[in-house]
């Protein structure tokens, strides 16, 4: 502890604290322009000068000055004020002459400080000018003429975002910040995350979305959660004149002030003219406008007739991983209690069913075991089957930062993804060979005696049997199967097992296989063997895709479980539900997404209700899905846009998007966070919760309290993990489940001390090849996935012009060798064919992919990857094998779709 005097008051701080940190801690404001919270002091702007008694020059910059015992500091003396003023005056002297009339001034920190020091801009003759403005990024502008060279953008991008875009160019007053090597932003490595824009204290980096120029007119800032992925970043929506004009990052527990391009800039869809604003019903083959009453009555009528004809199981519903917990809860209640069927599922089937099945079996809970924040504690990280920087961008960035701070990173992925560049060991394995690799890692760990014997003895079961099986899976054997170097497998094993805190992160590259559940379980085996569970910075962490896929599962939008993962087959669970709902759900598990599609095709489903999903693009083997949807008697689609799927519906219900409703999302780390309404839904569109409550009422089952908080309270009564939560308690950072009682602080780390299922279970698993193997006709492996700039089937992101500029076209990534063999060059049209169909799209030739593999993002309807994919299912979790099938690549004859 150090005691010094600040403005006449004694103050004690820990050693190494700077004067700035100490002052801020004590609530004393010192102006800064170049300081970035949490990073080392930079000392460039010199506006943080304070008076230091007895120092050589009398004053010193607070941001870089370390406190020392007995130091006497004044922030409020005349000398300090005058010096700060002199420095600010210099900055203004260099600033463009139009500064004080500039329309950006409302959001300009420089302007604000100048005003506080009683300064107005007087032309000085040395204003910066003549620097070319970089307008090439679709979302923001870099205007070096307004730059004060504080370096925040440089350091933010390099040290927080880890994208290293900017460098300082030139020297002295000719210095400027610019993307390296004289590039434009558009040609740089910039991923448009906007962190630099948020950091910039002037108008030098300003968003194009109007939130800047209109900043002084922003009426409200509404704290909410991003709806684009499972990371669950908190952000502030900026509302002006009843419209969302922009967003700024907030200090949420998962994002800590970061956002990615989608959360930050992709908001055009909210007030987009294409939004559905009135209910539509099909009349004489066409969708026409209708009243709510008419539409809902039609839904109820056809539902009744279906049930009469086929029984309750003739109805099925697809819930939505994009809607709130409250909405999904009511949706499954509608089916279970209102209709009496368990036929309710959602897209989680397509991404993480194998996780839920696999981890429930080995650990007892199918969710991310640890928290995102713990990345900062890790000294080793294994990323596999996840292109994290593109699919969970903020987590990707945080992993990147950890690697740069010294955490040892292992990446196992068929594509040389961005994180591979930061990795100590990169294993470019062949798609479909995950289990072989994980077993080999385990084998190497056992061989070298690196397993955690104590942990295994105390906390696990089934070890001997598993160990016996895994010992034969040597790295050398795996090397052949996976196409990687055995020595690298051993190195990776040593790094993972030897670390103090090591976490595993994986996503659909593991789950979307016929061996998906086996992959998940073998990762779990690996973590169990090394004792890397139930402790800070460890764990096995499935990264959930959509913003609320975790929550949709939690609240029971699955055919076999009630809210809180209580089995429908469990009489006690059914009784508990009945006590709340007034009706008991059926005991037989319902159909899964893929089963619903097959059942519909064969006429066994007469009524299908799809809330906020677009299976016609997202689901495997689209041809098949289209037939199924057409075969259904009555299709209800509730969505915010007229999607490909909605266009086939009999009734279309216009719903609200995340910015138009109150509710909760549960992110990938089990954190339940509040979503808040910033603007009303357009036209006659209604909040989903409202629509569902209305339907329940029409079915004679009105919820006791239709408000969001009320529905959440009801949910908390049925899902034990949520029992201790309420909207009031979720203010701020939210809570991580399980949270069993109102005084429980939530659970950042699962399985501490005890596994949810008691002991952790080892499960021996042998590698088996994917359902479809390559042959002469289809010699390449096709793998699908997503990219940073698009979300799901682009219903939202497709409306953001900037994103379309950055990644608006379908493409297939393939190795130069594969391209040569197909006879295409970069940018030319490629034709991909599988046993199910073919598509044409642009070739993107890249060294970053295995020569035997082709990658296609599934976002694009014009060249939908899912025309190609197969429907082979994982036998345990029924997840389709979207990540591997065999494909043929050849020169296309049409034009690449544009």
């Amino acid at each position, binding site marked *: 502890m150090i005691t010094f005097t600040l403005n006449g008051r004694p103050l004690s701080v820990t050693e190494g604290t700077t004067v700035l940190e100490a002052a801020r801690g004590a609530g004393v404001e010192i102006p800064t322009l170049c300081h970035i919270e949490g990073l080392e002091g930079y000392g460039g702007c*010199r506006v943080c000068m304070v008076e230091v008694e007895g120092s050589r020059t009398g004053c010193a910059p607070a941001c870089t000055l370390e406190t020392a015992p007995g130091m006497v500091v004044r922030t409020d003396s005349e000398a300090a004020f005058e010096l700060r003023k002199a420095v600010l005056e*210099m900055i203004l002297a*260099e600033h463009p002459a139009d500064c004080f009339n500039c329309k950006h001034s409302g959001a300009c920190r420089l302007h604000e400080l100048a005003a506080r020091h009683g300064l107005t801009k007087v032309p000085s003759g040395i204003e910066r000018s003549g620097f070319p403005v970089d307008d090439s990024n679709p979302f923001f502008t870099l205007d070096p003429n307004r730059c004060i*060279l504080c370096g925040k953008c440089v350091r933010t991008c390099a040290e927080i975002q880890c994208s290293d875009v900017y*460098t300082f160019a030139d*020297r002295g*007053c000719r*210095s400027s910040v610019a993307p390296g090597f004289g590039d434009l932003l558009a040609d740089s490595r910039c991923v448009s995350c906007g962190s630099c824009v948020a950091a910039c204290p002037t108008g030098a980096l300003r968003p194009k979305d109007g939130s800047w120029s209109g900043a002084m007119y922003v009426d409200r800032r509404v704290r909410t959660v991003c709806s684009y992925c499972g990371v669950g970043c908190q952000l502030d929506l900026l509302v002006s004149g009843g419209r969302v004009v922009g967003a700024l990052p907030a200090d949420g527990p998962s994002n800590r002030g970061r956002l990615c391009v989608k959360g930050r800039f992709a908001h055009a869809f909210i007030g987009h003219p294409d939004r559905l604003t009135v209910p539509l019903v099909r009349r004489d083959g066409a969708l026409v406008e209708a009243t709510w009453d008419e539409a809902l009555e039609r839904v109820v009528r056809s539902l009744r007739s279906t049930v009469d004809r086929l029984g309750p199981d003739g109805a099925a519903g697809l819930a939505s991983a994009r809607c709130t917990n409250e909405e999904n809860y009511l949706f499954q209640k509608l089916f279970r209690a209102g209709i009496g069927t368990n036929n309710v599922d959602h897209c989680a089937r397509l991404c993480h069913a194998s996780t839920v099945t696999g981890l429930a079996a080995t650990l007892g809970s199918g969710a991310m075991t640890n928290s995102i924040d713990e990345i900062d504690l890790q000294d080793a990280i294994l990323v596999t089957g996840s292109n994290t920087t593109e699919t969970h961008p903020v987590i990707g960035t945080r992993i990147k930062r950890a690697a740069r701070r010294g955490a040892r990173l292992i990446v196992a992925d068929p594509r040389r993804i961005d994180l591979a560049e930061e990795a100590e060991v990169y294993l470019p394995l062949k798609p479909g060979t995950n289990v072989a690799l994980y077993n080999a890692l385990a084998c190497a760990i056992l061989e070298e005696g690196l397993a955690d014997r104590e942990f295994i003895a105390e906390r696990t079961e089934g070890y001997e049997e598993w160990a016996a099986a895994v010992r034969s899976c040597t790295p050398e054997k795996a090397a052949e199967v996976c196409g990687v170097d055995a020595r690298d497998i051993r190195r990776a094993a040593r790094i993972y097992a030897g670390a103090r805190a090591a976490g595993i992160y994986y996503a659909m590259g593991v789950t979307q296989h016929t061996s998906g559940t086996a992959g998940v379980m073998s990762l779990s085996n690996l973590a169990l063997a090394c004792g890397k569970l139930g402790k800070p910075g460890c764990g096995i962490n499935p990264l959930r895709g959509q913003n609320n896929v975790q929550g949709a599962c939690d609240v029971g939008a699955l055919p076999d479980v009630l809210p809180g993962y209580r089995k429908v087959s469990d009489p006690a669970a059914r009784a508990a539900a009945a006590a709340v709902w007034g009706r008991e759900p059926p005991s037989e598990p319902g159909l899964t997404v893929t089963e619903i599609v097959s059942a519909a095709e064969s006429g066994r489903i007469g009524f299908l209700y799809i809330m906020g999903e677009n299976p016609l693009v997202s689901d495997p083997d689209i041809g098949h899905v289209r037939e199924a949807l057409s075969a259904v008697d009555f299709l209800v689609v509730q969505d915010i846009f007229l999607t490909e799927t909605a266009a086939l519906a009999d009734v279309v219900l216009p719903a609200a998007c995340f910015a138009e409703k109150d509710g909760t999302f549960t992110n990938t780390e089990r954190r339940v966070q509040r979503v808040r309404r910033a603007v009303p839904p357009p036209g006659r569109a209604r909040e989903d919760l409202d629509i569902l409550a209305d339907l329940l009422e029409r079915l004679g089952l009105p919820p006791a309290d239709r408000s969001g908080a009320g529905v959440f309270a009801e949910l908390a009564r049925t899902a034990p993990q949520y029992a201790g939560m309420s909207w009031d308690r979720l203010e701020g950072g939210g809570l991580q489940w399980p949270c069993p009682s109102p005084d429980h602080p939530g659970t950042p780390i699962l399985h501490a001390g005890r596994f949810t299922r008691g002991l952790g279970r080892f499960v021996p698993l042998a590698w088996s090849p994917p359902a479809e193997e390559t042959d002469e006709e289809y010699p390449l492996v096709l793998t699908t996935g997503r990219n940073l700039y698009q979300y799901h089937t682009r219903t939202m992101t497709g409306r953001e012009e900037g994103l379309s500029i950055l990644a608006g076209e379908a493409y297939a990534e393939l190795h130069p060798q594969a391209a040569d063999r197909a006879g295409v060059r970069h940018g030319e049209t490629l034709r991909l064919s599988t046993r199910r169909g073919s598509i044409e799209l642009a070739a993107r030739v890249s060294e970053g992919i295995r020569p035997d593999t082709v990658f296609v993002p599934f976002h694009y309807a014009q060249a939908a990857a899912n025309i190609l994919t197969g429907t082979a299912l994982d036998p345990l979790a029924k997840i389709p094998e979207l990540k591997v099938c065999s494909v043929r690549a050849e020169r296309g004859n049409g034009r690449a779709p544009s």
Partner: protein
Amino acid sequence: MIPLMHVILDVSEEAVKAGAREFQEVLEAKLRKEFLSEDVRILESANLGVSGRGVCLLVYPDEVYYGNLKPGDAARIVEQHFINGKPVEELFLGSPETRRLMEWRRKEGIIKKGRGRVVLDNVGAVDPESLSEYRSRDGFKALEEAVRNGTPEGVLETVKESGLRGRGGAGFPTGMKWEAVKDAPGDRKYVICNADEGEPGTFKDRILLEGDPFRILEAMALAGYATGAREGFVYVRGEYRTSIDRLENAIRLSRDAGYLGPNVLGSSFSFEVKVKEGAGAYICGEETALIESLEGKRGTPRLKPPYPTTEGLWGRPTVVNNVETLANVPPILRNGAAWFRQFGTERSPGTKIYLIIGHVVSPGLVEMETTTSLRELIYGFGGGIRGRRRLKAVQVGGSSGGIFDPSVLDEAMHFDALKEKGGILGSGSMLVMDETTCIVDMVHGILNFFLHESCGSCVPCRIGNERLVRAVNGFRTGSARMSDIDLLEEIASAMKVASYCALGQSPYLPLATAIRYFREEFAEHVNGKCRAGVCRFNVLKERQEAQRWMLAMSR
């Protein structure tokens, strides 16, 4: 075989234009003819410290300067001077004044070998490319003694006792610096020789590097031995091609002979030296910016503390010493601290290389004891003010030094000289100005230099300099107001307090002293008068008047 004489031929651009190469050819031919090629070694230097004197030749050991030579003179010099030992007086450099000056130099013993010459004694006397010549003058004796019979502690102790202070500008005690590095924890440490020499007009470090490169290597090895460093870097200003070449050559020869490399002279001490070319910016001479630049980054200063002695190159403890500082080390270790302390003052022992430039009869550099007064330097070594003019001002210590009037002439030029007047000794340059100099104009030049050299990372230096230049320019062009004199001081003093590194703090001293001693001149400029007749604001004013008039007419 050791030559009997060295002649240094001026090969500056100017001299070459005047026919230096032609002269060299004739001279070489003549020497061959007389079988003197082995005995008289011709060396080249791009800067003999003289200018405007055509083809020049400096002859050692006699220290005779010839100037304005024609090829035809070569034969005469060889016959009369080299063979018969009678310098050819008619060909001596310059005017009768110069000859008087050379007389003074001889008398003062500056020219006589030995006295006061601690660092420059080899320059011009040995072939800088020959290891054996360096050794013939006790070269590498100190290193040999240290690694064979000495201890690191012993070396350090002698350097500390000698009281040697850094010659790079700040005058920090070298022994203390080395001790800090020796005591800093860590097994990898470095020695850096700062040879960036960015100060305009200064070339003392280059003379040392070009003339005596082995000595610098020996000193670096000794620093490494004393501090536990195993690796050294010489960071040389990029323009110093010859220095770089000679250093590379010296490193190669020293390594081959076992003075550098693994197990120096069979001992357990190993030391490697690499030469790095500078990035060409003045700020890269600042030790932390230099380190950044060595690490391959943009050369901008680091925050201090931590100082390089604890966290220097790649975060390891690092000695950074100026070339001249290092050049003192081998003689100190050979002759002992007491020997060194007999020169100079108690607190600034030894000698200093002074550079006398500007309006003196014979500009150049000279090594003198630190007891030497400014008057001796200007009127003795420099031969007084040229062309019968009067001394007006001296800038002491280089661009960031104070600008004084003749009242300070009798001050001795040691490290603490002029301290109470705010002055610094800096690099030891003395810029001498006669009445033809306009102080305002000259300050403008200095500020322009700082503006040009600011790295731009901190506000006070980047923008303050721009404002200063603009404001001083107001005095030159006649648009300044009386209150601008104080404004100048205000800006400069804010810069002094608020700047990140010493460069941004630098304008204060020259500006504040100029205003203190020559305030009247600034005031005169406000009223449209430049007593030196340098500032052409009247012309500008007239032009403005004319424009205004034309504008009025056209309305």
